[in-house]
């Protein structure tokens, strides 16, 4: 049984991962801790190139964009 870390409002896994992306370098560290390879499938299979709008922040997405 996983203790819910956050009260009644579950931020959702997608929203959490996105915040790591938004967080830039700190988020990249957190993503690494997350055993990135296990969840890169969640981000991969980009059929269209992701626009690098947030400068370096989107780097982990494109650099690991090798699909599943």
């Amino acid at each position, binding site marked *: 049984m*996983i203790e*819910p*870390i*956050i*009260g*009644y*409002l579950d*931020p*959702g*896994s*997608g*929203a*959490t*991962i*996105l*915040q*790591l*992306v*938004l*967080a*830039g370098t*700190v*988020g990249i560290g*957190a*993503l690494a*801790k*997350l*055993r990135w390879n*296990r*969840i890169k*499938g*969640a*981000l*991969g*299979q*980009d059929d269209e190139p*992701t*626009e690098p*709008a*947030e400068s370096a*922040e*989107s780097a982990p*997405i494109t650099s690991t964009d090798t699909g599943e």
Partner: protein
Amino acid sequence: MIDPGSFRDPDSQVFYIGERVFRGLSESAASVDAAARDAGLMDRLVASGMLVENWRIDDVEVPAGLPSAAVVESRRIPVISHPAEWSFEMLRDAALSTLDTNLAAMDDGFVLKDASSFNVAFDGAKPVTMDVSSLDRIENHSVWTAYGQFVDHFLAPLMLEAYAGVPFQPTLSSSVVGMPVQMLDRLLRGSRRYRSGVTTHVRLRSRIERKVDGMPDERRSDVAGVALPAAVIEANIRKMRKLVSKLESSNNGHWEGYEHALPYAEDETAAKKAFIEAATADANIRPLALDVGANEGMFTRLLIDRFERVVAIDSDPGVVGSLYRMLEGTERDGVTPLVVDIVNQSPAFGLFGRERPSFASRVRPDFSMWLAVVHHLCIGQGVPIGKVVQLIGETSPEAVVEFVDPNDPMVRRISASRPELLDGYDRDVFETHLGLQFTLVNRESVSSTRTLYHVVRCDR
């Protein structure tokens, strides 16, 4: 009475005794609440107008089944509105207010644990957070917990209107979850996908959400275990604030500028104003007035000194936004402009169809004003004249109503393509219906084709 919309947060539930508003708190919520008060945060948020005035109270019996470790009472906000009734500027200001409350809380080691647009009320024309138990200790939050909810409730509908030119109100109507970002993703295609914030908050987020749907539980628990430093959470909130504050509506209202384009003669306007002033010259300040079809509020302002609160409704989001922007100084304390179509008012919705009450049950005016509205309802909307009079009677016990004769140029214009709609549209028929429900206090012709009536319902 227990609030029918206050069940999602098990640590804090709203109940009412008469007109007074209370929250029953659990042990953990009571501890957070005490800490926020001790830190002076609650006082600061209230003093800056971000949070509604609230205080601890002891001698109140909490209804059975509700958390009761502590009770907080808050000032009742007279008019509760829903996001689907706000103009673009109102939703944006509510969003900024939510973010600013969050940032102010972070200075003291707290955060807002949710970001529902239903937590915000417009007190007059000022956004204020009602849910005083949304505060939580930041150490209980490893990420910006409310991010997803903030996007769905605020950012996505704002982007819909700013980037796609589609008014958000119909999309938020009867929605308790805002606008899911996946829905917006399908609408922001082509060059719109390169607008500010779309790549990350809409496209990438939707993509991740879709992938996450198929993610095994163990990976989800991995994700739930990540933690960002508070400074990074704060930086994300500041980035969001910058994005939201730059959004502008790309939708111009059909009726915007209408008041200035009207062919009314100055003496007609003066006669109308004098009639309204006489009708509302009651010695007592009464609680609530409703201006139906208020447009940009030329006559709404006459009611400000005579009523504690004035709700000015119009079905056109553009003019409601325009009135909201034009309100100045103390006008912002008393007037709440809302996007409401009087013949299609917001219904009750949510759990049991009662979680969020209807417009008619939230706004119960003592007086209503219907200037240049009746002919639009009869001819433009096809509502029989008897039903329009019934609507006026069901809305308030007292009213000022304008009737525009069939030979008026404006009436001729809107009936030009369908002259058969003028059948039964007649001043004698109107007065007969009016006489069945109301007592006439005053009647005056303000031009050759326009007559004002001040009426009081017979049961009063």
